Each structure stands twice: as structure tokens, then as C-alpha cells.
């Protein structure tokens, strides 16, 4: 369960059952298995795809949101796989945002690219991302031309995407890399006539001089080239020298560690975990699967000291909570009714995470979300307001006020019936907290949950009577409500517990 909580957004009840008792190796094999490409988003107005049509300026805002709702649902509905958690990781690494890019087709294509390479070769990924039209717009690669270089992408490529800030590169390396990258441009941006979007290399805007790098890159020189293939040839050389910097694999492995394991990387972890993982990354020619396989099966990953060290991101919390209760989005292709419900659910997931400060496809800056780089890391997700919103989100699921796809979200009575012995408040609470919380509670906390939260200080045997009364007359609304309200208060309390916010 721990493995699934960290490597995915949390299992559905069925997945939890199916994977119970399997070894880490078996689960990891499943997590890394190739997945089909998800069906692209549909336009509610036409029930047809829209990413492959000319830009629709009238409906652009709406269609942009559909992409976000759609991705939320892909996460919600995914089988046991590492893929979507990795796709989200890369959207926090190779950052672009829809506020700047401002073409929903570009954002869809960018998102698809993240998914395509999420578990592939980091080298090929970096080369492809550099040419991605959304990225070319976001970091002004499209404006970087010979004579008037725009250094934005060249800087972030080194500082954030590959070498990292400790890679020892110089301002000269920024300028030289910018020269290597001259000449690229996106195509089809907000084109209302033609559907095609992509990128192109304009040889006449390329800086054909030799580019000389500092000692950080072993004083490498990238030979200036001419012609239509010059851009890709020099870019490939550039990515090779960036990846040859010993800091690059360490930097990427640290990011993965902070995403999947823990924020804190003391010297011992750096030496005994990051460095060996980085060596493996390099030896595997920057393939990501071997690294993730090793990370998720390492002894350290399962170590008690890192359990509960991660504060759930808003997506973890929102998607994970939905999945726990078995809530899924219906197949949008089946009917318009389904498509409507599909976007209602996607909208709900997306909006809750956004108000908790995780706006999909729109990280606040090129650094991504602050929880993965700023002081105190995951604690960045938590403040008075976001904590309130987290609680508010969970309250809404249990109050029966919210109906998604015409259905209640959380049925606490049905849930209690899935437990081994709902007549026994001790067993009920023990089992529920084991399922809902990633970390164990001690006895005094459990007693508090039983006696104070669930039973409001009435004796425990009273629960048996109340529950059995309800079971005997399930349609008696008074008897039903008596246990339902108690269970609702209990589940709401758990949702608001600090322990529910960590994984």
C-alpha cells in the first residue's frame, strides 16, 4: 500500500485488494509496464477531439480547461502505473504554463510529450523538449536568433533542466548554449485556419560560429554548423555535453528523490543513495526505467524513517481521496451524458487542487511548485488557508451535498459494511485508520477516535446496539441517520487530521 501511495495517487479499493500480498518486485514491474496513450480530450459541444483542429479563439478558454479536466481524469482513472505521477513530475521539471503559452493545442501536445518520454530516455526527452512548441514559446527559444540571442531557455536548460545550479557552469556557458540554440521556432501558434502545429529550424537565423564552453563542460567546443540539420546536430551535441557533467544525473536523481521519497538529502543519503542512483542513471545511458525500478525497490525507500515524510500535494490529496472511495470518471466517448459527467468530475478535481495551490499545467514559476525546491519543501503546501481548503474539500465529500455524475461521493454506511465487523467500534476504527492513513496511530489516538470522535463519549457497547438497530431496519431513517451521522463525523475528522495530509 505504501508503494502504491507513493508511486501512484493511491490505489482504488479493487487495486488495493488485487495487489495485497504481492512483492515489491511484482508491483514495480506492473508500475513500469507500458501503458496505452490515453484518448485525447473531447469538446463537450461536438463530442469530437479538438487538439487536432485549427485554433478556436472564441472557445479557447473553455478548451484549455478541458485539457486540464481531462488530465485530472486520466490521473483519476489510471490503472496501477507510475506513468501519471511521472508525467506530473516532469511537468514540474520541464515547466511551461498555459498562462504564457496561451494555445490549448500547444499545451495538449506538451502534456502528451511529457507522458511519451516520462519513463523513457532522458536524453531523447531533453532534445525533444527543447524543440517543443510550448517550451519554445514559454522560454522564448523561438526568439533566440543569431545576433540577438535570447538567453532565457539556455539558462533554464542548465540551471533547472539538466546540470542544476551546482553544476559549476558560467555565464559564458549560458551565452554559448544560447548560440547553439539559435534558429528554432514554433509553428501554427493560434492559427485559426490550419490545424498543424509544431516547430521548425530556420538555418538562416542560426549562429554558425563555434561555441566554446567552460571547464564545467570540460572546455568542450561545439562546432558551428550550417544548413537545415545544423540545429538538431548542435542541440544533440549540447545535450551530450550537459549530460556529461557529473552533476546532471545527481541533480535529476535528487529531484526524483524529493518527488517520491523525502525532501531532506543529508550527506549520507547523497553518498549512499543519490550517487549510486546517479551512477546507475549514467550507466543506463539516461534511461529512466532502471532508475525508477531501483529507487522503488530500494531498502531505503521502504525505510520506516521516510514513511509519512511527504506531505501530500493537492493532486495527491484530491485524486487519492477520490480513488480511495472508488470514484471514477465515466467513459466520455460513450454518450453526451457521460461526457458532461466526465467534465463535471474533472472540473471538480482540477478546481479543488487549484484552490489548494496546485494549478495543473500552470506551475507558478519556471521552478515549478515551491514544495519541491523552497525551504521546508512540502510544508509549502500547508498554510492556514490551504489547510482549511483541504478540510473543506473532504467535508464536501461526506455531507451528501455534493453529487458527481448524479451520485453521492462518499457513502459512509456502505464503507462501514466493507469492514470486517462494523458492529465493533474498536475494529471499525482500527481498520478504517489503517486503510485511510499512511502511518500508524498509537493506542491513545485510536481510543480518542473511538470514544470522543465516533461515539461522543457514550459507552462503546452502545454502538453495537445502534448499528444492529440500523441493520435490522435499514429503511428506518432515524436509525439509519443515528449511525450515519456518527460515521460521517468520524470520517470528516480523519480527513482533517494532520496524519491524513502525509504519505
Amino acid at each position, binding site marked *: 500500500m505504501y508503494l502504491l501511495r507513493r508511486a501512484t495517487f493511491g490505489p482504488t479499493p479493487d487495486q488495493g485488494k488485487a495487489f495485497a500480498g504481492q512483492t515489491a518486485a511484482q508491483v514495480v514491474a506492473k508500475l513500469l509496464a507500458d501503458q496505452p496513450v490515453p484518448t485525447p480530450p473531447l469538446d463537450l459541444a461536438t463530442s469530437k477531439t479538438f487538439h487536432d483542429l485549427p485554433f478556436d479563439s472564441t472557445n479557447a478558454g473553455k478548451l484549455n480547461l478541458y485539457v486540464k479536466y481531462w488530465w485530472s481524469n486520466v490521473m483519476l482513472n489510471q490503472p496501477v502505473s507510475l506513468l501519471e505521477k511521472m508525467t506530473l513530475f516532469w511537468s514540474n521539471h520541464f515547466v511551461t504554463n498555459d498562462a504564457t503559452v496561451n494555445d490549448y493545442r500547444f499545451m495538449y501536445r506538451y502534456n502528451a510529450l511529457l507522458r511519451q518520454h516520462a519513463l523513457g530516455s532522458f536524453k531523447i526527452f531533453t532534445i525533444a523538449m527543447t524543440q517543443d512548441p510550448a517550451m519554445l514559446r514559454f*522560454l*522564448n527559444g523561438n*526568439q*533566440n*536568433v543569431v*545576433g*540577438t*540571442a*535570447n*538567453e*532565457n531557455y539556455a*539558462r533554464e536548460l542548465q*540551471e533547472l533542466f539538466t546540470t542544476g*545550479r551546482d553544476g559549476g557552469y558560467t*555565464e559564458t556557458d549560458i551565452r554559448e548554449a544560447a548560440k547553439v540554440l539559435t534558429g528554432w521556432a514554433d509553428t501554427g501558434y493560434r492559427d485559426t485556419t490550419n490545424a498543424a502545429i509544431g516547430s521548425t529550424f530556420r538555418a538562416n537565423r542560426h549562429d554558425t560560429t563555434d561555441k566554446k564552453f567552460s571547464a564545467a563542460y570540460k572546455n568542450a567546443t561545439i562546432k558551428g554548423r550550417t544548413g537545415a540539420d545544423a540545429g538538431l546536430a548542435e542541440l544533440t551535441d549540447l545535450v551530450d555535453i550537459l549530460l556529461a557533467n557529473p552533476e546532471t544525473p545527481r541533480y535529476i536523481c535528487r529531484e526524483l528523490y524529493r518527488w517520491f521519497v*523525502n525532501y*531532506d538529502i543529508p550527506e549520507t543519503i547523497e553518498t549512499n543513495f543519490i550517487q549510486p542512483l546517479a551512477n546507475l542513471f549514467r550507466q543506463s545511458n539516461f534511461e529512466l526505467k532502471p532508475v525508477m525500478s531501483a529507487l522503488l525497490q530500494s531498502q531505503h525507500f521502504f525505510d520506516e*524513517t*521516510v*514513511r*509519512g*515524510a*511527504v*506531505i501530500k500535494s493537492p493532486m495527491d490529496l484530491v485524486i487519492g481521496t477520490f480513488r480511495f472511495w472508488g470514484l471514477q470518471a465515466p467513459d466520455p466517448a460513450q454518450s453526451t451524458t457521460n461526457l458532461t459527467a466526465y467534465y463535471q468530475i474533472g472540473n471538480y478535481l482540477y478546481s479543488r487542487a487549484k484552490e489548494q*495551490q496546485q494549478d495543473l499545467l500552470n506551475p*507558478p*514559476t*519556471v*521552478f515549478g511548485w*515551491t*514544495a519541491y*525546491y*523552497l*525551504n*521546508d519543501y*512540502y*510544508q*509549502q503546501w*500547508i*498554510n*492556514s*488557508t*490551504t*489547510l*482549511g*481548503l483541504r*478540510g*473543506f474539500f473532504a467535508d464536501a465529500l461526506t455531507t451528501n451535498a455534493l453529487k458527481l455524475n448524479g451520485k453521492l461521493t462518499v457513502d459512509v454506511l456502505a464503507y462501514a459494511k466493507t469492514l470486517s465487523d462494523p458492529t465493533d467500534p474498536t475494529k471499525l476504527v482500527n481498520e478504517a485508520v489503517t486503510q485511510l492513513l499512511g*502511518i500508524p496511530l*498509537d493506542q*491513545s*489516538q485510536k481510543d*480518542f477516535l473511538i470514544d*470522543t470522535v465516533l461515539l461522543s463519549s457514550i459507552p462503546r457497547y452502545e454502538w453495537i446496539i445502534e448499528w444492529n438497530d440500523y441493520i435490522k431496519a435499514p429503511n428506518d431513517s432515524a436509525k439509519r441517520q443515528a449511525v450515519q451521522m456518527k460515521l460521517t463525523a468520524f470520517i470528516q475528522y480523519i480527513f*482533517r*487530521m*494532520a*496524519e491524513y*495530509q*502525509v504519505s
Partner: protein
Amino acid sequence: MKRRNFIQLAASSLALPVLIDGFGAKAFARQSSFVQSLINLADQSDRVLVIIQLQGGNDGLNTVIPLDQMSVYTGANFRKNIAISETKALKLKNYAATGLHPAMTGMQQLFNEGKLSIVQGVSYPTPNFSHFRASDIWMTAVDSSQTAFSGWAGRYLDKRFPEFPDKYPTAQMPDPPAIQIGYVTATTLLSPTDSMAIVLQDPDTFARLVGDKPNAPATTLTGYVGKQVEFIRQQQASSVSYAGQIKTAATKGKNLATYPASNTLAAQLKIVARLISGGMQTKVYYLTMGGFDTHATQVVTTDTSTGTHATLLKTLSDAILSFQTDLAQLKVEDRVVGMTFSEFGRRAISNGSFGTDHGTSAPMFLFGSAIKTPIVGKNPNLSDLDNNNLKMQTDFRQVYSAILTDWFGTDDTTEAAALFKDFSVAPVFRQTVTDTEPVASELRLYPNPASSELTLESSLLGQGIATLEMADMQGRFMSVTTSRSTATSVRVNVGHLPMGNYILRVETPQGLLSKRVMIAR
């Protein structure tokens, strides 16, 4: 005296290095913040600082325009493609050499009313070009070679409210020390152990969101998970304990001025004004405005006074004007100052994409009725660049020092602890005398220290003396007798004054003379 080493500051920041360490007429008529800080008046406890972070690195050179160097500024190899034309730049009262971006009419008005100060060329030695690292440096107030995990305002508030949040709220401090409007807690507000801030988006819904007091059983968890759980619980507890206070202040408070619509910063400032007028005791408010990373098309190519950057500056300027107007109408104007900062300025030379890449020094703005010096420093010298970057004049920590010392009345030890070092104070809240005044060599005061009599010599005295005042460091006027020995000197009898430091201030038709005097025997 190191931190008040005005001559050193003057040399680094003023064209004609005459920065007289006195207090102007205004200071004595109505006690200046500096005087107040010296005597540490109790009413400083209600002073408020509003910090506005401009995320992304604001282009200072298109914000504050060097009208005295337009030929360089608009040059083909400089900023031709994005330059603001001299005719469009907004003029500033008494400062013909400096203009504001045409979108900043609100801040122009505040400047002309004496409520806005521009600190020119703010940066730090060996600047960093990374958004991430540079923001950290500004927020934590470290040297660029060092790191820290707490913020400057957080450390100050931690000294002022020790053992927050455990022992708070108290009767003296019923409210959170800092409030951040918006998103994740800024590093600026972190103390060495805790966040000093409550983060909220909307005071009206805050109490409802936070809910009732959590009655959580104690945790026995240790290690990382123990740390995270403890942190979340503490956040829950402080939000619950402050929710009622914030709600009360929000209900009691009001806005009297009209704020511009669809202006995200104005919406945040509106909340701040309302909370202040509602009686919140909070000392620091923190707001954020993004979008300043203008690598490309910061201007519209056909009209450089419009475009992305213009929209940003208009948003900023309109919001600040409406806020200041509101504070004045709410009669709390004298309690509040504001400050803007950005992690860096941008390259002096524009790029080919009608934008600017990451640079170094840039102006900072401070606003409020306590402002004394309209412009600290001078226009950056566009002909003296460092790798295409503008040279630094004032360290950003000198501005923080001004806020801590002159605005919050912090003592030297606390100030140095908050900033890790002792910095000379940027004279934002002190009256300074600049190029309209005589240069230092034209003024002689001797002997200094004096025991019975001292002589002030200056050619300015030839036109006569309007007033002559002697004041002690508490701002109290001393009665002194004077005599004129020559046309360009005056003798002052100080034999009856107790030992200590004094300010001698002489007004003449040609300008003001002011000098610190020490009486010693």
C-alpha cells in the same frame, strides 16, 4: 557609529556627496520617524509594513527612466527597440533628470505629493542571475555566497514576539505578527523556527474554512513524519486561534476609496487596508504580484509605452495609489509604509525579442506619508556598465535597515541580528540634502567636539541667517546664543549644554546647513 556612517553612504549613493546627518524642519515640527526611533516611542507598536514582491525580475530601466541620458538609453546598441521616449516619460517634481514609465501616473502623483521614494540601483555584491537563488537572497537577506533558511522580516518579528506561536496570542499581541495575502508562505516571513505569518486569501471565508478548534490527541511520532505532523497541527492551531480575530477585524474594517477593478494587487491591498482599519495589530503584510520575467515582447513594437510591462506597471501603480488614498481617508496613513522588491533588475541592453534578460541592480519603491527623501541615489550611469549590467549603488539590506531602524524603531542589535550584519541606513525616512545644497567642503564646523563655543563657516551665511536651531538627539530644542564674527561665519555659545550629541541646523536664503556636533569636556 559604523551603521550611521553617512559619509560612506553618501559617497556610494549621491552625485554630490552631501548628506547632512540632520533632521529637517519637518522632523522638528512633527517628530520624524528617525527621532521616534531614537527615543523608541511606545506608539511605534502600531506601525505596519506592507511588502509587495514583484516576481520575475522587474525591468528597472524602463520603470524609472534616466532622462539625463536619453541618447545612450535610446541608442541602437542599447534599448532602441524598447526605449520609452522622453516625451512620454512621466515627469517628477523637482527631479527633472528622472522620469517614470508612462503607465505609472498613480505613483507619479504619490511622488509629487512626497509619499513615494525611489531608491536607485539596489542590488548586492556578486549578484546572482537565477530567479530562485536571487529571490532567496532577497528574502533571507544573506550575502550571495551564503545561505539561510529564515527570512529577514521573520527574524525581526521573532525577536519582537519571542516564542511565537507557542505563547501567542496574548493580550498585547492578539493578532498574527504577519499576514500574507495569497499563496504559500514567503521565506521572508519565516523565523528560524516557525512561520510568523498567517496566510489567507479572503478574510471573510477564512474563519469558515478553518473550522472549530481541532481537539487532536497528542502525537508520539518522531523523525520526518513527526516533524510534518507537528507542523500541520501547529498550523491548524494557529489558524483556529486567529480566525476569530481576523473575522472581527474584517467585519469592523472598511474601505473608503475606490480600488481599480480587475487588478489583482489592488484586491489584495484592499484587504490589507480593511484589516488595518479594523484594528488588526499585525506588523507585516506580504503580497505578491507575478509576471515580471519579460524576456520577450515586454513592449508593443509599434508603441513602446504599451505592452506587457506597461500593463504590469499600471497594475502596480494604480493599486498603490488607491491603497494610499484609502489609508489617508481611513486616517491610518501615518501608520503604514509600503515597499516593493524584485529578485533582480534586467539587463541594461535589451535583447532582440523586444525584451530583456536577467540583470542586476534596479530601483526599489517605498511609499507612505513617512517618506522623507524622494530619490535616494542617482540615475544609473548607462555609460559605465558591468558586463552589460547596471552597477549597484545601494545594498538592498540598507533599505531593510531603514525599515527596521527608522520605521520600526529597532535597536542596533536586533537590526543586525535580523540582517546578519550591520548595514548603514538608506535615508528613505530621513531628510537628506542633495545637489541643490552646498558640497561638504563649503561647510566648516570647529572645534568638533566643542566645549564652550563653536564656529560654523560657510559662504552661504553671506546672505544672512533665517533661523538657527540646536537640538539634542531626542529632538528637543536647546536655547543658544550666537554672534556673527564675519559675514561667512557664525559663533555659537554651547558652554551651558550638557555633554552629548546635537544637531546644528541653519537655514539661509540659499539653502539649509545642518551638522552633527559633539559637546565634550
